[in-house]
C-alpha cells in the first residue's frame, strides 16, 4: 500500500487517520496554515539567495565605478533615460496589479485574480519590448561589452561600462522572462479555479518573486541611467 498516498482524498478512505484532507493540502503537512507558512518561508529563503546573488553584481558596479568614474558619467549619457523611466513605471504598475491579484485570491474573487494576473503579464511583456528596442539601439551603435565594443565617441573605457550594463540588465531581464513564465503557470491554474481564500500560496509566492524583480530594478535604474 505504499502508493496509496497518491490517491485522491475524496475517496473516503483516509490512510492517515486524521480526518478530512483538503485536495490542495499536501500529505506531508498537518494544516493549510502550516503549508502556507512553510511555502512562504521557502520563498523568502530563495529571495534572500537572490538578493545575495544580485549583490555580487552590484559590488562589481561599485568597484568599476570606483575605477572609472569619468567613463560612467560619459557612457550613461548614451542610455535612453526615457525608456528607463518608462520601464520603471511599468514595473511599479505591474507590482501593483500583482499585489491586487494576491489580494483577489485571498478574498476569493476569481475574476479580479485572473484580470490582474493578465495585466501583470502584459506589463512584463511591455517591459521586455522596451528593453528590446533599447538593446537594438546599443547593438546598432556598437555599444557592446568588452572586446565586442566598436562604438565611437565615448571617452575612457566604455567597453567596461557596457559589459556591466548588459550583465546587470541582462540578468534582470532574464528574471523578467522567468517571471512571465511562472505568471502564466499561475494564470492557467487560476483559470482552473484552483485558488481561493484557503489556498493561494502559489499566487503569493510568484507575487513575492515578481516584487523582488521590481525591487532590483528600483536600484538598477538610478545607478545605470541617472549617474551624477
Amino acid at each position, binding site marked *: 500500500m505504499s502508493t496509496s498516498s497518491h490517491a485522491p482524498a475524496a475517496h473516503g478512505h483516509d490512510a492517515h487517520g486524521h480526518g478530512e484532507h483538503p485536495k490542495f493540502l499536501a500529505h506531508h503537512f498537518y494544516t*493549510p*496554515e502550516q503549508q*502556507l*507558512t512553510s511555502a*512562504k*518561508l521557502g520563498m*523568502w*529563503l530563495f*529571495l*534572500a*539567495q537572490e*538578493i*545575495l546573488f544580485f*549583490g*555580487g553584481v552590484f*559590488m562589481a558596479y*561599485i*568597484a568599476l565605478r*570606483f*575605477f*572609472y*568614474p*569619468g*567613463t560612467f558619467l560619459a557612457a550613461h549619457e548614451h542610455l535612453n*533615460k526615457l525608456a528607463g*523611466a518608462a520601464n*520603471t*513605471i511599468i514595473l*511599479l*504598475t505591474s*507590482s*501593483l496589479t*500583482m*499585489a*491586487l491579484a*494576491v*489580494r483577489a485570491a*485571498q*478574498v476569493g474573487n476569481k475574476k479580479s485574480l485572473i484580470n490582474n494576473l493578465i495585466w501583470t503579464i502584459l506589463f512584463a511583456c511591455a517591459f521586455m519590448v522596451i528593453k528590446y528596442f533599447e538593446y537594438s539601439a546599443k547593438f546598432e551603435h556598437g555599444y557592446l561589452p568588452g572586446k565586442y565594443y566598436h562604438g565611437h565617441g565615448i571617452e*575612457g*573605457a566604455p567597453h*567596461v561600462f557596457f559589459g556591466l550594463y548588459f550583465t546587470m540588465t541582462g540578468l534582470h531581464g532574464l528574471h523578467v522572462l522567468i517571471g512571465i513564465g511562472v505568471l502564466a503557470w499561475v494564470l492557467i491554474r487560476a483559470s482552473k479555479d484552483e485558488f481561493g*481564500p*484557503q489556498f493561494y500560496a502559489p499566487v503569493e509566492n510568484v*507575487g*513575492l518573486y515578481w*516584487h*523582488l524583480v*521590481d*525591487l532590483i530594478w*528600483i*536600484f538598477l*535604474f*538610478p*545607478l545605470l541611467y*541617472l*549617474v*551624477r
Partner: protein
Amino acid sequence: MLAKLQAFYEKYGPDYVKEVLAGEHDPYGNHISALPVYYAIYGALLILTVLTVAVSYADLGPLSLPVAMLVAIIKASLVVGYFMHLKYDTPFNVLVFFGSLVFLAIFFVFVMVDLNSRGTLVAEQENFSIHRAQDPAEVKPAFVTPKNSDHGGGAHGDKKDGH
C-alpha cells in the same frame, strides 16, 4: 465650511488611516490589506520615481548619489513592507530578509575596505622590495590597475606622490 472640514476629519482622520492600515483577517487567520493601502503605496512609488529623475537633473554635486540611493531605499521599503506584505508577515520571514541584508553589508564593507587600502599595501610592498633588490627596475607591482583607468593610479593614486 468648518463643520464640513470637521466632518471630513472625523471620517478620514487618523482613526480612519489607522483602521485602513491595520487591514483585516480572513476566517483562516491570513492578513488582508485594504485596497486604499495598495493605491496609496503605488502613488507614493510614482512620486518617488519622479523625484529620482528630478534629482538626477538637479546639480547636487557629491550629494546626488546618496540622495538617489536614499530615495531607492525608501521605494524598496514600501515595496517590501506593503506589496510583499512583510510588515504583516511572521517575524521569522522578516529575520530571513534582514539576515540577507546583513550578509550583503558584510560583503560590501570588506570589498570596499580592500579596494581602498590595497594601494597602500602595494606601495609598502614595493618600498620593501626596492630596499631588498637595490634595483627598482626589478620591482614588479603586485597589483596593477587597469591600464586605461580614469584616474591613472586607481586605488593607489597617491603612491606616486609619496616617492
